Each structure stands twice: as C-alpha cells, then as structure tokens.
C-alpha cells in the first residue's frame, strides 16, 4: 500500500525552478533514501511534503488523503514528522525536558495550566519510553546544548518519535558526525524502521549508508528526478553514474 504519493510536483522560487515534475510513491513500511548533488532539490522536496511551503504545481497525497496545501501543524497531526538539516531541539533544556515537552504535545495536554500527580506519572512513563527507544536514558539530566552533535540528533529523533509518526522525514541525519556516531545513527534509523515499522524518507550524502540500509533510492539532480530503484539498480544506472557517482568515483 502506498503511504505517500507525489504527482508531477513542482516548486519554483522566482526564476529558479527548484523542483520540476517530481512523481514518486513511497510504500508503507519502506526505508527510502533521497540522494543527489548539492542543490538537487532534496530539502525543497522535504519542505513540500512537510508543508513548510506549498508546491507551485502538482499534488501530494498521504495515507489516501490530499495534503497539497495543508499546513505543517495539521500534517503533524496526520503523522508526518520531520527533522531538520540543522538540529532543532530545545538547547538550554535537559534531555528529559526536551522529551517531556514533546510527550506533552503528543499527549495533547500542553494547555493544562497545572500538573497533577496522575498526569505527571503518565508523562514520565511516555518520556522514559521515548528515552528507551532512542537510547539516551543515561544522559537524561544533561543540558541538550552541551551534548555531542550525534546525541543532539538522537534527542531530535526522540522528539520526532513522540508524535508516533507514520512517515518520518530525516534531513541529513548523519551530517557532521564522526564514524562511530554515524554508525549508531544508521543503526537507529534501521531499527526504528524494522522494529517500529515507521516509514522513513531520508536525505543522505554517504553512499555507503544509502546502499547499506535503504530499501529504495530516489536520485534527484537539478530539480528533476533522475532515477529510482534499489541499490543495485541505482549503482548500475548510467545516468546516475554520469551525474552523481561519476564525480565521487
């Protein structure tokens, strides 16, 4: 069953055609990588899907419903959660406080002007669960801004998971990480996809990671879709080799 469906989606910024006529389908439970050189339109694609801005043309369907011009807050309600290229967390709060805010939002209790013991217990349970899933429990009381970049990313994913996403959009989840952090992040992404069944779309530059974990790969170049397929197909696609892998090799 397809979860996300883009039909001839375009986006232009003034004279710049950032994306043109992109059509792609992501199946339920899929782990999909989006790759392409800088400026290919990967982040623009994420911004369109997450409702950051609407497409100039074409249509987007999610879970059977049209979401072409729906605002980000409603998309979050429907289950589309994203992380950003630059980590967006609550930097001067502790890890626990970061996840507590996320849990309270997800539980729909953010407006409660006083805390009760029962409510605190429910919130704490959810927070512990989130820390458990992403494995950041040992750093619960550390200030998020003082964590390593990799751990901040993990916190961000914990925040995203609080909303029980149907579709997780990860914009360069391993950017700026060392080898070990990258491995851990990759393992986490794969684990969330396989164990929790979260359909995931991620932008990544590291080909080893992409070929290692993605079910399917979408290649963008210059705002157009160059190719789509599994690791084997993409690696052997002459157009991709010319436009993208060729430079790297």
């Amino acid at each position, binding site marked *: 069953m397809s979860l996300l469906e883009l039909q001839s989606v375009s986006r232009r910024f003034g004279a710049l055609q950032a994306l043109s006529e992109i059509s792609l389908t992501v199946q339920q439970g899929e782990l999909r990588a989006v790759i392409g050189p800088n400026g290919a339109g990967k982040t623009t694609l994420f911004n369109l899907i*997450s409702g950051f801005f609407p497409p100039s043309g074409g249509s987007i369907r999610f879970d059977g419903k049209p979401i072409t011009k729906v605002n*980000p*807050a*409603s998309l*979050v*309600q429907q289950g589309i*959660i*994203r992380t*950003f290229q630059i980590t*967006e*967390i*609550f*930097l*001067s*709060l502790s890890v*626990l*406080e970061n996840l*507590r*805010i*996320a849990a*309270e*939002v*997800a539980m729909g*209790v*953010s*407006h*409660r*002007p*006083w*805390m009760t013991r029962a*409510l605190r217990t429910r*919130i704490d349970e959810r927070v512990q669960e989130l820390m*458990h899933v992403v*494995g*950041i*429990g*040992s*750093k*619960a*009381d*550390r200030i998020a801004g003082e964590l*390593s970049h*990799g*751990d901040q990313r*993990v916190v961000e994913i914990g*925040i995203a998971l*609080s*909303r029980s996403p149907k579709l997780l959009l990860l914009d360069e989840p391993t950017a700026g990480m060392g080898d*070990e*952090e990258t*491995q*851990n992040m990759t*393992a*986490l992404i794969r684990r969330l996809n396989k164990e929790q069944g979260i359909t995931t779309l991620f932008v990544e530059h590291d080909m080893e990671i992409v070929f290692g974990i993605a079910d399917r790969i979408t290649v963008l170049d210059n705002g157009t879709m160059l190719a789509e397929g599994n690791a084997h197909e993409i690696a052997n696609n002459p157009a991709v080799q010319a436009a993208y892998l060729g430079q790297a090799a």
Partner: protein
Amino acid sequence: MKDDMTSTLAAPPAPAAQARPAMRRNAHVGTLLLAALLLTAPAWLPYVGGYDDIASRVLIYALAAMGLNLLLGFTGGLSFGHAAYFGLGAYGVGLMLKYVTHNVPLALLCGTLLGGLVATVLAPIAVRRKGIYFAMITIAIGQLFYFIAIRWQAMTGGYDGLTGFSRHAMHLLPGVTWTLGSTGFYYLVLLCFALGAVVLWVVLHSPLGHTFVAIRENQKRLTFLGVRVQRYAAISFAISGFIVALAGGLNALLDNFTSPNSLNYTLSGDLVVIAVLGGMRNFWGPFVGAAIFVLVRDYASNVTNNWMSVIGLIFILSVLFFPLGIMGFLQRKKVEK
C-alpha cells in the same frame, strides 16, 4: 557512544538525577525562609531603617516584574508595554473606589479584570510579530492607554492623575474588620503577592509552563511538533497581563492616587530592568531585582535627584558582570560548587 546507544536502554538515570531532589529541597527551604521574612517584616523593618510602605512597594513591583517575567524570561517575549496593564489595573481600582464602591477587594478584582482582559484581547495581535517588532507593537499599544488617560480629563483627571479615593477598611465578617493602615495594607499586598506567586509557580510547573519555555527555546521545533505557537504565546501574555494589573491596582491603593505615569512606557522599561537585573531565568529573580530597584530609588532619591543614574550604573554593572542577573549568577555559583 556506541555503548550509550545500546547498553543504556534499561539503565536508570545517572547520578545527576540524584542531585535534583536535593536542589529542590534547597529551593523549598529558601521559599519558606522568604515567607517567614515577609510575614514578620513589619516587626523587623524599623530596626534596619525600613518602613511598611516601602515593603509594600517592593512586593508590588516584584509582583508586576514576576508577572511580566512569565512572558519575558520564560516565554521569550520582550514587552515594553506592560505598564498599560499596570496602569489599567490602577485606574480600574481608583475609579471603582471613587465612583462605585468602597469595597477594596471588589475594586481590586475589577481593576485586575480590566487590565487582564485588555491584555487578553490585545495579546493575539501583539504575538503575531516576533523579536524587535513584537517589542515595538507592545510599546505602541501601551502608549495608546497613556494618551487616553491624559485626554479623558473628566474621567481620569488628565495629567494631574486620579485622586479622591482611599483604602476603606474591609469588613470580612460581622465584627471582623481588616483595617488598611500601613501595616494592615502591607498584609493585603503580601496576600496578593503570595496569590500571584502561587499562580505563576503552578503554571510554570505545568505542561502549559513547559510549553511557554519551549516557545522561548525553539519556536520552529514546536511548530513542527504541531503546536500553534502564537496561541500559547498569547496565553502567556494574557496571564502576565492579569498579574501585572493586580500589582497596578495595589499600587494605586498604596498611594491613594494614580497618574498617567503608571501607564507610561518608562514604567514598562523599569519592569524589564527589574526582571533582567534580578535574573529573568529565575523564578525569584524579579523579586530580588524589585527589592534593589525600590530600595536604591528610595535611598538614592533622598541624596540626589539623579537617582536614575545610580540605578543605571547598577544595571550596566549587572549586565556586564552577571548577564544572567543576580539570581542567575548565584544559581550558577551553586552549580559550579
């Protein structure tokens, strides 16, 4: 790092967590100590050269600055227009007592509602802007009421201010009367201050308060969690408006007078200075700031007309050496130990 991702899954929170209850206990002890000091203030104040009215003034400014600080320090909204709600509270109380009732609690309630409801109505407009534009729009809205007070002479007394009302004794029960002399009034102020502080404390420790802090920290993140940030910022603005209006009402009672200056943006600026001076990330910071501000103003103005220069100097030194305010500085010292 690799170990952290896997082996810590079931691990209980590390030792840092144990430091928390101890810190919380210290905070409770501090609060109890403060309560004891404030409750006994009329008894010990004369020995340190103080008097009841100045203690009332400290509490009133502290309440106003703590109310403002819900928006400023905890939600991240710099308002230079909160004098409007302070002044509306003051005029509300004055007008009620002068024309409608001699019931002080009822007048206080009306003044608080007037200022608070105006803040509630204007908040959604102000929070549509961010940063410096938000500050500008709060000034503009605030000054509106200043000019109304000046122009509507028949009702407000114009530049001369509103006089002709006083603190009538409160008849609580048949035979039980709370007279509002300096000491009696101090305890009314203390009661209102405690009420305001409890409301703020409860809100800040609730999910709503956590949401306010999250707004200060990262609006983008919150938006993409599905939170309508402006709505929550407006709620913070409104609550702070009610608290500031209550303080304004008490201020009118303290002086038996209120002037357009209680609506002017210089007072808004004073409240911001008080919060920043004391420490706007700390719950009691504005209280400490208010104590310094009011006492320095009182003593320095006996010596020189330029008491503002003294406050200004203290403010500059504080911003240079304790950018987190005095309470922020003390808190950090404790953590470093």
